[in-house]
């Protein structure tokens, strides 16, 4: 028994390192889970006279997708969001984060928009209020305006089926 002790300790360590290798360091635990989505009011892209605030969505389960025209993985995510929007299972709000070159309206009119509304966060302050570290990030917000889930990185069909859709079902969307 005693001579096996180092071997056992070794394999326990290997176990920890192996687990660490497969963790995503970008997946920072969000302090907002279970808390109300921070309030804001922002003008809409392409229609500055109108504005959006999260309280407009009371009574609905919705997604807030933080994206930007300059963000490459958002382009990769775009067709997935488009097909989700066609399914109309849940409204997606596309927070346009730090779009300094003002390209969002143009991009959405040529590529199509999966969004129910596109609030324009030019300064990036609303992003900071939501603890955004990079685009794309997606929040699942329930009928009472409570953040239920945060996904960091682009949504693909796998993430949708395994992570987000089950959560939406649970929330009764």
């Amino acid at each position, binding site marked *: 028994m005693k001579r096996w002790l180092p071997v056992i300790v070794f394999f326990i360590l290997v176990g920890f390192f192996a687990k660490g290798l497969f963790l995503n360091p970008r997946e920072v635990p969000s*302090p907002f889970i279970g808390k109300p989505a921070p309030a804001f009011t922002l003008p809409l892209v392409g229609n500055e006279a109108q504005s959006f605030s999260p309280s407009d969505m009371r009574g609905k389960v919705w997604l807030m997708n933080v994206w930007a025209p300059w963000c490459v993985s958002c382009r990769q995510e775009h067709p997935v969001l488009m097909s989700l929007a066609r399914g109309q299972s849940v409204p997606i709000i596309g927070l346009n984060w730090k779009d300094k070159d003002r390209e969002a309206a143009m991009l959405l009119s040529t590529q199509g928009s999966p969004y129910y509304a596109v609030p324009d966060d030019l300064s990036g302050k609303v992003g900071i209020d939501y603890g955004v570290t990079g685009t794309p990030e997606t929040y699942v917000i329930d009928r009472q305006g409570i953040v239920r889930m945060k996904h960091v990185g682009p949504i693909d069909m796998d993430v949708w089926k395994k992570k987000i859709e089950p959560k939406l079902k649970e929330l009764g969307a």
Partner: protein
Amino acid sequence: MKTMIFATLLALGLPAYAGEAAPNAEDPVIEQRMINLATDLRCLVCQNESLAGSHAELAEDLRKEIRAQMKLGKNDKEVLEYLTDRYGDYVLYQPPFKPVTYLLWLGPLLFLLLGLGAWYAALKKRRTLQAAQLDEAQRAAAEKLLQDK
């Protein structure tokens, strides 16, 4: 003469470089406070850089935000609260002492105690080995060996 002019021109050129490193902050006190605070904070984009040293755009925005809040008269603790409310304890390089981090903080002490325990056990074992009794025959043999020079 030409050399003189050349040397003078060279000398004139030097001070131009000296100004480059000057910080472009309007308020050096707040800048210093911001840097002191941000050195112990993690940049969320390049996670192995501090918020003070990172060139990521988000880090710049956050530094701007820290400056703005300090200008409003918030103290360091309130600014840290503002950041941890949004990004969690993850932004702090020095995690707070609370139930989920007990193992993290007390782990080294635990290992020290384990090591001390193992050390004590080994010492005790060695002492019992030394105290092994010799019987009469062995004692006589040892005596003989010692006297047989």
